């Protein structure tokens, strides 16, 4: 079993080191400058970074640049190697360190530079926006869809970018039983059904209180909606 390594965080001040040239991959950040702004995570949680290094290297070698399929190939590994609590995962500095210091090649390999703002998000986003930081989004989507160590739903989600976009862009995606139910029910559906069903499910929540739903109730609701969508 690989040895666990300490996790670090990039401080708020350290974010200033991330300039446009770095985002474009045309420059690196001076290690001495960087070391001043990197500190151990509070409570000093650890992770199997050696295995994660291997998983990232595999993805870099096996997938072409900007291929969305690498999300699904890496999500499970990110989640399993970073066996951390949600409290730890809630620290944006951790994801900034992982993206900027540990795996910047992966971020650039997965996300094409389209604008400084968009690329800055991929390196320095985090928090409750599941769409921002390139590594944070893999961990959180896995966290919200893995069921007792079973990543079937996670893998289904990442094979369908419409699902990633339409489910995790909605606020109900922060409630695990609903996420799992919706993803399970929609996993084999075409994009137009996913699009319309998630919109209607979200709309139904104007009257239904989300946290009152069990996973089974959420699944009954989304399946009823899918049937309506297909027959309309």
């Amino acid at each position, binding site marked *: 079993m690989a040895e666990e390594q300490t996790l670090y965080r990039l401080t708020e001040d350290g974010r200033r080191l991330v300039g446009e040239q770095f985002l474009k991959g045309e420059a690196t950040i001076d290690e001495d400058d960087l070391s001043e702004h990197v500190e151990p995570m509070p409570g000093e949680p650890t992770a199997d970074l050696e295995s994660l290094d291997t998983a990232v290297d595999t993805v870099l070698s096996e997938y072409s640049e900007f291929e969305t399929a690498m999300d699904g190939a890496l999500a499970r590994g990110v989640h399993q190697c970073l066996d951390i*609590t949600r409290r730890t995962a*809630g620290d*944006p500095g951790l994801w900034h360190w992982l993206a900027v210091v540990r795996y910047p090649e992966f971020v650039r390999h997965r996300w094409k530079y389209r604008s400084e703002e968009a690329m800055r998000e991929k390196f320095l986003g985090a928090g*409750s926006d599941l769409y921002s930081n390139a590594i944070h989004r893999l961990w959180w989507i896995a966290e919200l869809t893995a069921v007792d160590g079973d990543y079937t739903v996670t893998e289904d989600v990442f094979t369908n970018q419409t699902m990633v976009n339409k489910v995790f862009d909605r606020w109900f995606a922060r409630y695990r039983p609903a996420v799992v139910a919706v993803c399970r029910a929609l996993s084999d559906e075409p994009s137009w059904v996913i699009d319309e069903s998630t919109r209607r499910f979200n709309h139904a929540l104007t*009257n*239904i*209180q989300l*946290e*009152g739903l069990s996973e089974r109730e959420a699944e009954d609701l989304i399946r009823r909606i899918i049937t309506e969508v297909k027959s309309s």
Partner: protein
Amino acid sequence: MYSVDGKKPVDLELKAGQTQIDLSSALEAEMESGDWEKVVLYGQLEVPETTVEAVFPQEERESPPAKLYVAVRCHSTIYRDRTIVSKSPTDDGVYDVTIVLHKDVVRDEVELRPYLVRASDRSRDGQYAYKKNFRVSSGDIYTVVVDRPSDEQPPAIDGEEISFSQASHLPEGEKLYYLDFRNEARPKLWINSDHPRITDVLQSRGSVGAEARMRDVILDQISYGVWIQLLIRAGSAIDGDGDVDFEWQQTVLETFARNLYEVDDLSEAMQRLRTDLGEKESLPHVLELADRELQEYIDHRTQLINLMEEGLSI
């Protein structure tokens, strides 16, 4: 009352109307002597008879088919859950509530909000909620602070000082600040460093004394102008489905929309705001509502009195 890791419960000593429960100091003290694993909060919820009468038809009031629970939400850890207080039937009366917060799944602040929802379907007659899990009533939001806000916490919007006279993209004149929406996804607040006397005060870190009090008053003044713009912008961004594009818009609307219209349902409040902002006749009314709400939210009065009493000694 609250208890940390099974220790003797401590009174919360909440004042009337107080909805923030700040446990950060107590939990920090726990961490100095080791760590904490869970906090248990004890309280009571009342379901008034008038509520039962208002939301259930006559034939159901004897034994209301409802469940009562408290939604537990932590924004920082993308956590949403609930604690069941009463299963169906739920009569009017007072219920004891015990909420357990595990350290592993919370950080910063945790929001608690009680909901009463239907527990079964009934025939639709137009007057009462008829579907299982339809929300029929809710209570105040209580915020439990588990971590002291750090200087490093990301602000709601980005902010930066800059000399407006040196920056061609910022407005001319003696502006104090400018809220920049060129990137609608991430508004940015620029503070004009052409006024160093003011920016120096804004940078002061103290919590007592004239400078700190003055800083708080200036911040209140700026925040009023910022919030009103964010609120109107967010309200104008609501689409026909009741959705907005950006997280900051959702956050702003979640914070203010319900209070503007004094309704519990966020979607209803958002639709009303969207409609009102879209009509010339109702626009002055919305601005009046926003002004009232922001005065309540910012509470200028407190910082002004602090300035008078502590800063100016009058």
